[in-house]
C-alpha cells in the first residue's frame, strides 16, 4: 500500500491513446524540482524560479536526446488540484512520446500514481469537502477495480507466466534465506551460494529483458495493425470515435502514408492499436475500384486483425445483400485462414430485433454494435484485447506494455542488483533479505503481494523444521 504523501507521483492526465496533445501530471514535494532537471526553457528561464500558475515553453530532454517540445504549467502548493506542488506537462499526443516522458521521470525518483491517487491527495489535503467523500471513495474503488482487471487481462499472456515464475523462484530464494536465519540451529540443508548466484543473475537478465521490451516494444511504438474493411459510408470514423470513447476528432495522420489508407492509433487498455482504413472488396469491373480491392488485400496482409464492418441497414435492404456479404467474408477467410476476423454489424440502433436475428442466423460470429449509441463498443474492445492476451496475434515475445508494471520491474531490478552486490561483498544474509523482500514486493505489485505469512508457509511446507 503506497499512500504516503511525501513522494512525487506521475500519471497521464488525459485519456490514453493518440490525440493532438496529452497532459502528464506530477504531484508531490519534488514535482517542480524533478521537472526542472529535465526541462530546458526555450527562453532561458529557470523553471524553479517561476511563479505559481505560469506556463513555460521548452524541451524535455533525456541526456542528449530531446524527447518532445512541451508546455509546462506550474502550480505551487497549496494552490493546486492536489494541494501539493503540481506540474503539468503538455506534450504531443503520441503514446510513444507520452511513455518516454513518463519513463524518464519514473527512472528519476517519481512513482506511478495509484488509481485515483491525485483525487485522494486532493481530498487528504483538504481541497474537497467531506460531502464529496463518498464520491471520491467510489471513484477510487471503481478505478482500482478497473485498473486491476486491465492489469490481469494484460498479464494473461507470456508476461504473467514470466513474472509468476520469477516471483516463485524469488519466493523460494527468500524462504531459503529466512530458513537459514530463523532455523539456523536446526538440521536444515541450505542451498548452495552458487545456485543462488545463478538464480539472481538469471532474474536480473529476465528483468532487464522485460524492461527493454517496454522501451522497444512494437506494440507501444507502433500499435497492433488492425484493418477495417468496409464501404465508404459504413460508419468507420464513427466507430473509431466510439472506440476513443470521447468526442474528439482523430487527427493523428501518420506521416508517410498515402491519402487512401488513413491510419489512426488508439490505445485500448494500455495497448496501442493502429487502425487502417481500407475500401471494401466487393467484386467489380471498374478498373479504379479493382485497384482499390488489390490495395485492400495488401492492407489485410499487413494487419494482425481484420474488422469487417457491415452497414446492416444497407445489407438487409437488397435481396442479395446477405448472400453477397457471406461470399465476401468467405473470400477473406479463405485467403487468410489464420488471421483473426471480426464481423461487426453496425447501426444496431436502427435495426429491429427480428432483423438482427435474421442476420445473425446467416452470418456466424456477428458482433452487433452501434457506433452512434456506443452499444457493443466495450465488447469490441474486449475482443481486441482478448486477441492480444490469448496470443492470437502471435506476438511471441513477452512485451511489457503497462507503465505501472514497468515501474515495478525497474524497482525490482534495482533491488536485485543490490542482492548481487551483497553476494559479491559477502553481506550477511539478513541484510540481503531486505533487498530480496524489496524485489519481491515490487514484483508483487504486479502479481499480488508476498506476505511474511506466505514466506513462513513456504518454509513449513517444504522443510522439516523443529527440534
Amino acid at each position, binding site marked *: *500500500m*503506497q*499512500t*504516503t*504523501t*511525501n513522494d512525487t507521483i506521475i500519471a497521464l492526465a488525459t485519456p490514453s491513446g493518440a490525440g493532438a496533445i496529452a497532459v502528464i501530471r506530477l504531484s508531490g514535494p519534488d514535482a517542480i524540482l524533478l521537472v526542472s532537471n529535465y526541462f530546458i526553457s526555450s527562453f532561458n528561464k529557470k523553471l524553479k524560479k517561476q511563479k505559481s500558475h505560469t506556463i513555460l515553453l521548452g524541451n524535455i530532454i533525456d541526456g542528449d536526446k530531446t524527447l518532445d517540445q512541451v508546455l509546462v504549467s506550474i502550480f505551487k502548493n497549496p494552490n493546486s488540484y492536489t494541494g501539493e506542488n503540481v506540474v503539468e506537462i503538455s506534450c504531443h499526443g503520441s503514446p510513444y512520446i507520452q511513455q518516454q516522458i513518463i519513463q524518464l521521470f519514473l527512472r528519476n525518483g517519481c512513482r506511478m500514481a*495509484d*488509481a*485515483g*491517487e491525485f483525487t*485522494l491527495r486532493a*481530498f*487528504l*489535503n*483538504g481541497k474537497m469537502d*467531506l460531502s464529496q*467523500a*463518498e464520491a*471520491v*471513495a*467510489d471513484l*477510487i*474503488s471503481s478505478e*482500482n*477495480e478497473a485498473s486491476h482487471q486491465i492489469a490481469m487481462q494484460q498479464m494473461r499472456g507470456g508476461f504473467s507466466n514470466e513474472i509468476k515464475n520469477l516471483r516463485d523462484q524469488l519466493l523460494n530464494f527468500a524462504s531459503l534465506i*529466512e530458513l537459514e*536465519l*530463523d*532455523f*539456523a*540451529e*536446526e*538440521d536444515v540443508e541450505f542451498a548452495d551460494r552458487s545456485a543462488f548466484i545463478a538464480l539472481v543473475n538469471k532474474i536480473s537478465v529476465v528483468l532487464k529483458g522485460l524492461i527493454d521490451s517496454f522501451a522497444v516494444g512494437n506494440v507501444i511504438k507502433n500499435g497492433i495493425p488492425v484493418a477495417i474493411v468496409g464501404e465508404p459510408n459504413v460508419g468507420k470514423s464513427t466507430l473509431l470515435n466510439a472506440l476513443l470513447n470521447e468526442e474528439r476528432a482523430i487527427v493523428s495522420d501518420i506521416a508517410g502514408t498515402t491519402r487512401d489508407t488513413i491510419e489512426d492509433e488508439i490505445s485500448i487498455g494500455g495497448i496501442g492499436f493502429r487502425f487502417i482504413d481500407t475500401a471494401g472488396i466487393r467484386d467489380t469491373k471498374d478498373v479504379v475500384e479493382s485497384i482499390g480491392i488489390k490495395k485492400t488485400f495488401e492492407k489485410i496482409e499487413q494487419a494482425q486483425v481484420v474488422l469487417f464492418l457491415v452497414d446492416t441497414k444497407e445489407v438487409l435492404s437488397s435481396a442479395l445483400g446477405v448472400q453477397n456479404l457471406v461470399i465476401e467474408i468467405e473470400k477473406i477467410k479463405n485467403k487468410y485462414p489464420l488471421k483473426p476476423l471480426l464481423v461487426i454489424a453496425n447501426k444496431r440502433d436502427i435495426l429491429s430485433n427480428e432483423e438482427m436475428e435474421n442476420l445473425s442466423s446467416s452470418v456466424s460470429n456477428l458482433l452487433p454494435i452501434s457506433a452512434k449509441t456506443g452499444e457493443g463498443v466495450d465488447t469490441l474492445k474486449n475482443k481486441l484485447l482478448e486477441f492480444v492476451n490469448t496470443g492470437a496475434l502471435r506476438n511471441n515475445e513477452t512485451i511489457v506494455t503497462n507503465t505501472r508494471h514497468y515501474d515495478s520491474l525497474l524497482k525490482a531490478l534495482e533491488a536485485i542488483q543490490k542482492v548481487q552486490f551483497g553476494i559479491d*561483498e*559477502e*553481506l*550477511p*544474509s*539478513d*541484510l540481503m*533479505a*531486505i533487498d530480496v523482500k524489496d524485489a519481491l514486493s515490487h514484483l508483487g505489485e504486479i502479481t499480488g503481494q508476498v*506476505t*511474511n*505469512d506466505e*514466506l*513462513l508457509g513456504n518454509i*513449513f511446507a517444504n522443510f*522439516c*523444521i*523443529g*527440534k
Partner: protein
Amino acid sequence: MFGEIYDVIVVGGGHAGAEAAAAAANMGSKTLLATMNLETIGQMSCNPAMGGIAKGQIVREIDALGGYSGIITDKSAIQFKMLNKSKGPAMWSPRAQSDRRRFSEEWRLMLERTPNVDFYQEMISGLLIENNKVVGVKTSLGIEIKSKSVVLTNGTFLNGLIHIGEKQFGGGRAGEKAATGITEQLVGIGFESGRMKTGTPPRVDGRSLDYSKMIVQPGDARPEKFSYLDTNFLTNQRDCHMTHTSEMVHDLLREGFDRSPMFNGRIKSLGPRYCPSIEDKINRFADKNSHQIFVEPEGWDTVEVYVNGFSTSLPEDVQFKALRSVVGFENVKFFRPGYAIEYDYFPPTQLKHSLETKLIDNLYFAGQINGTTGYEEAASQGLMAGINAHLKINNKEPFILKRDEAYIGVLIDDLITKGTEEPYRMFTSRAEYRTLLRQDNADLRLTPLGYELGIAKKERLIKMEEKEAKSNMFVDFFKNTSVIPEDINPILENVNSALVKQSDKMFKVFSRPKVKMEDMLKLDKVSSFVKEHNLNREVLEQTEVQVKYAGYIAKEKNNADKLQRLENVKIPSNFDYTKLKSLSYEAREKLTAIQPATISQASRISGIKPSDISVLLVFMGR
C-alpha cells in the same frame, strides 16, 4: 479471608502470570497471584532453555522494560550461546540452557521479594463480572476475591487433556490437574474458544546414556548474558550433546502409528508446524532418513536429561523401544514419557492491543490462552498485560509497543489483527523491520519507556544512557579519525579485503563487510581509545553495529517511518463499516470483526485490499 479489594489478580503462575504479577506490583498495584500450585511458579513445562532466534530478542526486550525473565535466566543458566553470530546483528540471538528447578525457584524468590505481591494456591473456577466488567474471581472452594482487574494466564490448563498412545486423561501438565470452569463461563458470555495441541519429549536418566557416541555441544567460549543489569557471566558451563535418529528408529516408531492419537483422529486440534512431534516429522518428510536429537541436561546437579527433538505422543512402549535404537541411548532408562496435550484457547482477535478483552472490561489474557507457544512469548504478554491492567485501573492510556519498536509489538499486533490457527511462535521474519529490533539495542529502544512507566528502575536508565553516550562517542571517533595505508593494509590483507592506497577515515574501512571490531582493535589508536574511555563489551558491540550496518538501519528506519504515517491515522472505536458501501463486502465484514485501531492495522488484516485502505483514508480524513 480476602477482605481487601486487589488492584490486579493474576490467575496462573507460569511465565506470563509471573511477569504480569511482577509488572503490576512494581508499578504499585496491590496484586494477588493465584495459582493451583505454588511450587511450580515459573515452571519450564517443556525444554529447559530460554531464548533462541527471535525469542532471545524478546527476553532482552522484557529485561529492558524492567521484567524479570532475563535476570532469572542469567541466575539459573547452565550454558549460554549467542546463536547466528556469523549473520548480521539482527540475527544475533541469545540462548541459555537453564537449571529447570533453579529457574522456578528464582522466580518464586524474586516474586516474594517484590513488594505488593500476595500469593494464594487454589484453582480459580470463575470470574466475577458486573455490567460487562470483571470485579474479581471465584475459587473452587467458593471463595470470592474482589479486584479491579484480572489477568488470565491459564497456559495449557483450561480443560487440559493429555494423550499418550491410546490413553488419555485430564491434566494441565503431566502430574498436575486441569482447570475447569473458566472456559465454560466465558463461552457463556459470548467468547469464542478453540482447542490447540502441543507436545513434549521423554525425559531420561543421564546415567543410562553413552555420551562418548554423541557429539559434544559446548556453550560459547566467552558467554554473554540476557540482563542489561549487573548479573554474572557464566564462568562454568554444562555441555549439551547431539545424536540422531536412523531408519531403524523410524521403522520402530511407525509400528506404533495406528495407536497414535495424532493419526487415529483422537487429537483433532492443530499443533505447531515448526515444532512437530517425531512421528509428524517421519510422516511428513518420509524421504529424510535421519533427524537430529539434542540431549540437554536439566540442571547443574540432576541426572535428568531432556531429549529435545523427540517430542511424541506415541504409546510409551513404542517411545521406549524406538529411543533405545538411537545412538547413545541403547541402555536408556525413562524418567517420564513424552506426551501431547490439548487445551482451550481464545482466538486473540477478541483482544485489544492492550490485551484487554473487547467483551469484558478490565479482563486481560496473556500467554497460551491467546494461542501462542513459548516461554518468551508468554512472558512478554504477561508483562504487557500486567502493565496495562495497572494503567487501566489508574485511568491511564494503555501501553502499546509498535511493530518497529519491539518484537513484543509485532507479537501482539499479529495476534489481535490476524489471530492464529496454530500455536504462534515468534520468528525474526515476522517482523518487517528486524534490523531495528536487535538484541543489542533492546535497552536503547525500551528502557526509557519502561522507566517512564515506573517499571524499569533508575539504575537501568543510567546504564542505558551511559552505553548510548559512549557508543555514540566511539562512532564519532571512527568517523573523525583517519588511518594511513601502512597501518590498515596488513589488517585488510589478513581479512582478504582490498587494500587502500591513501589514508582514509576509519569509519569507511570499518564499514566493509569483512572488517570486524576485533580487526579495528589491532590499531593502536583504537585500542588506546577503548582503554582511555573504559569502553565495555556492550559499547564495543553497539558501536560495531552502528558503524557497519548504518546504511541498512537507516533504510529500515525510513521504511518504518513511512508506515508510521498510516499508524497515526486512528479509526474511532466501534466504527460502523457497514455504511461504507465503497468497501468490498469482505472488507466490511473483516473490519467489523477485528475493529482495527489504526489504518495501518487495518492494512495488515488478510483480505483487505489497498483500495479498501484508500477508501478508509478518505473517510478518516486527516
